[in-house]
């Protein structure tokens, strides 16, 4: 039942590193995280990798597999050809700490900059009444497991360290949208601050974020686009946007 799989794993730290080839057994039904753990137990005891739930629920095991941002615990070995070499590298948008572990503190800093939920001053605990249909829009965004794969995929910051200061990234656009659509939140200018302070305008709707989201959150269609539409007060024209995917944009719409 076991078969061999060739892995090319990036090993190193913040200053130096290289890809290393290993061959390891893969059992039926295993995911990439399993074979990484086997490498760790048998061949490279100090290989650094983050994980927790092994079920796609915690968003810890984010890495790039053949260059694509993915959860290692949800990537089955059987999706690769026999004899194929699978390349495993750390998230590219964030500084490497060691091997597959990166410094994702950028995201926690951005989280801190978004004004917290604020309920009506006179609402008493237990008194809130909301219809399912009204909570569902925000619930979609609250499914986010903070794997930061969308942040990694977004070209605005992927290779542009300089943009990080003024751009919160798709994870935090959905956080703002979630609060904006929250039936009980009283802060009214969330869309404007998304535009003015969090760099919503730098997003040019390439949808790369949506494509990599393991929770299948429609980041662009359900959060970014509706916010943009209302922010500029002009009807969104998909053709105009599609045409500008590859053109470099300089900030505001």
């Amino acid at each position, binding site marked *: 039942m076991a078969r061999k799989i060739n892995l090319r794993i990036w090993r190193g730290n913040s200053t130096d590193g290289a890809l290393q080839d290993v061959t390891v057994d893969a*059992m039926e039904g295993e995911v990439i995280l399993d074979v990484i753990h086997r490498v760790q137990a048998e061949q490279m005891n*100090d290989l650094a990798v983050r994980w*927790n739930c092994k079920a796609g*629920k915690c968003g*810890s095991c984010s890495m790039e597999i053949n260059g694509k941002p993915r959860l290692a615990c949800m990537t089955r070995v059987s999706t690769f050809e026999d004899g194929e070499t699978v390349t495993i590298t750390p998230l590219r948008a964030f500084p490497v700490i060691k091997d597959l572990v990166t410094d994702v503190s950028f995201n926690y800093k951005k989280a801190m900059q978004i004004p917290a939920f604020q*309920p009506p001053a006179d609402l008493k605990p*237990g008194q809130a009444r*909301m219809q399912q249909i009204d909570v569902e829009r925000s619930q979609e965004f609250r499914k986010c497991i903070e794997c930061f794969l969308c942040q990694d995929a977004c070209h605005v910051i992927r290779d542009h360290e300089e943009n990080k200061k003024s751009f919160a990234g798709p994870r935090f656009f959905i956080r703002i949208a979630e609060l904006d659509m929250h039936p009980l939140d009283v802060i009214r200018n969330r869309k404007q601050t998304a535009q003015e302070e969090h760099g919503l305008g730098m997003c040019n709707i390439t949808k790369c974020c949506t494509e990599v989201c393991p929770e299948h959150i429609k980041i662009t269609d359900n959060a970014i686009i509706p916010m943009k539409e209302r922010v500029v007060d002009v009807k969104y024209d998909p053709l105009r946007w599609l045409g500008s995917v590859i053109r470099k944009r300089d900030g505001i719409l």
Partner: protein
Amino acid sequence: MSRSLGRYAYDVVVIGAGGAGLRAAVEAREAGLSVAIICKSLFGKAHTVMAEGGVSASMGNVNSDDNWMVHFRDTMRGGKFLNHYRMAELHAKEAPDRVWELEMWGALFDRTKEGKISQRNFGGHEYPRLAHVGDRTGLELIRTMQQRIVALQQNDEKETGDPEKFIKVFAELTITEILKDNGKVSGVYGYWRESGDEVFFDSPAVILATGGIGKTFKITSNSWEGTGDGHALALKAGGRLKDMEFIQFHPTGMVWPPSVRGLLVTESVRGDGGVLTNSNGERFMFNYIPDVFKDKYADNEAEADRWYTDQTNNRRPPELLPRDEVARAINTEVKAGRGSEHGGVYLDVSKRLPAEVIKKKLPSMWHQFYELAGVDITKEAMEVGPTCHYVMGGVDVDPDSTAAVGVPGLFAAGEVAGGMHGSNRLGGNSLSDLLVFGRRAGIGAANYVKSAGANPVSDTSLKAAQEKIEKPFTQTGGENPYALHHELQELTQSLVGIIRTKKELEEALIKIAELRVRIGKVSVSGGREFNPGFHLSFDLDNMLLVAESTALAGLTREESRGGHTRDDFPVMSSQWRQVNLICTFDGKKVSVEKTPLPSMPKELFELFDPHELEKYMTAAEMSKGGSN
């Protein structure tokens, strides 16, 4: 080797950023303390994030007959009356407020038609009681509290210019030691996982919120974090562990493919209508209804099926018996040769609910089976079997303040604390436990700090902690930590598992002693930076202490109850119900002693039908009718 040694000072250090730790931190901050939150993973990844089914609270939104007294009764019944009555009482009374409070912090639970928080059925709960968000309730809980902490930090920033002035998260930092000076807690010692650098905190109060012990077993629903660190830290600091023989094996873990063996299949699958069958297609749970539950559970399919639409006039399906019953039943079916292809039984919801409803109510289960096992649960049955899920035992605490008995300055809440769940926990009662006792730990620590004052760490305690950290790098002997972990897991799984015997438990204790010697010879390769082998070498020591406590307490308790089943003592004994087993550690080995279980006062005693209590209590207890 001289490395940088970080030093911080806080009023209270919270070890653990799961539900219990975060709730404690919020409360302590609101009481005016400065708080450090320390966790082994990134912020927001603790085990709590994996909880699926829901949080129990008798809000009565779906059935208005529900109230704290019914919840209290269910909890005591589920725990086979070994619970600390006071914890169960506080929990049942305070859970609704804790859930509503989450809503005030931004949580969005699923709704009823009237727009209230919806509640679902779960094993052992008389009424629909679990507030939930699909099957990702733990994520909602942890994210809400994470965001609440950010909100507090934003406030502090507004007022002082520094968001981290009063509350700071130290992520990816492992605590290896609780430091004590003058007979009281003085701080904690640990290392940064990233750099391997050591660090200590001066802090007169420490709250343990370190979660569970699942990783001591081979088949478990727990993540790598569940290594019983808090249990071991408390033992080493002179604390007491109680009820360590009681381990919950969740009846439904995945069994296939091997790489996901143990992964949880939420109880909501059964709550929402899933039925269990064996390889003969029999709905076998009807054969396993214990006498004490006969009046509450249907003994025929027709009635069980009617219950889903009419709960007033029918008894509940036996699939919803407390977890220990269902786990043992599955174990028996498999042993009798009526198991599924890969050694489990079948759990099927596809014949009960339309595909769209399944995907909506159980989205992550659908996803988990589809992605990881190639099974479409809207069309076919799942294969499931027991998995080590939860430890009822834990630090012996004062119910009201959560203060650890015997260690001034130490508090414990959440899974690491003992007593609340007795011999078996009901589903949904953990998330509510985290909130109720997390908050109480915050208050308890705040009151303690205000009266006890500072107690700085001394050089002597520092030095001792430092020497221990160096050991895996300086030791020789060549033992591989991964191999030892594997051996420990095999041992607990086969000798301290669901069904236990004297002979096996004695054998387990001998093997554990042998492993302890070998752990002294673990040497790790590589450097200090993010080195999982080095990390595991510490976790191993903790897991071994936990396994030893469980085996020893299991050997001592000569009866079967909840999460402790002795093949050689198969019945429940009302004599043993009056006893808690307490484990302590003298630096070399664990010892166990019996202490009396506090008995219920009259006003709680009288909440029960005496005919029910008779099944659990001695004649003397019955005639006394309550402790006051």
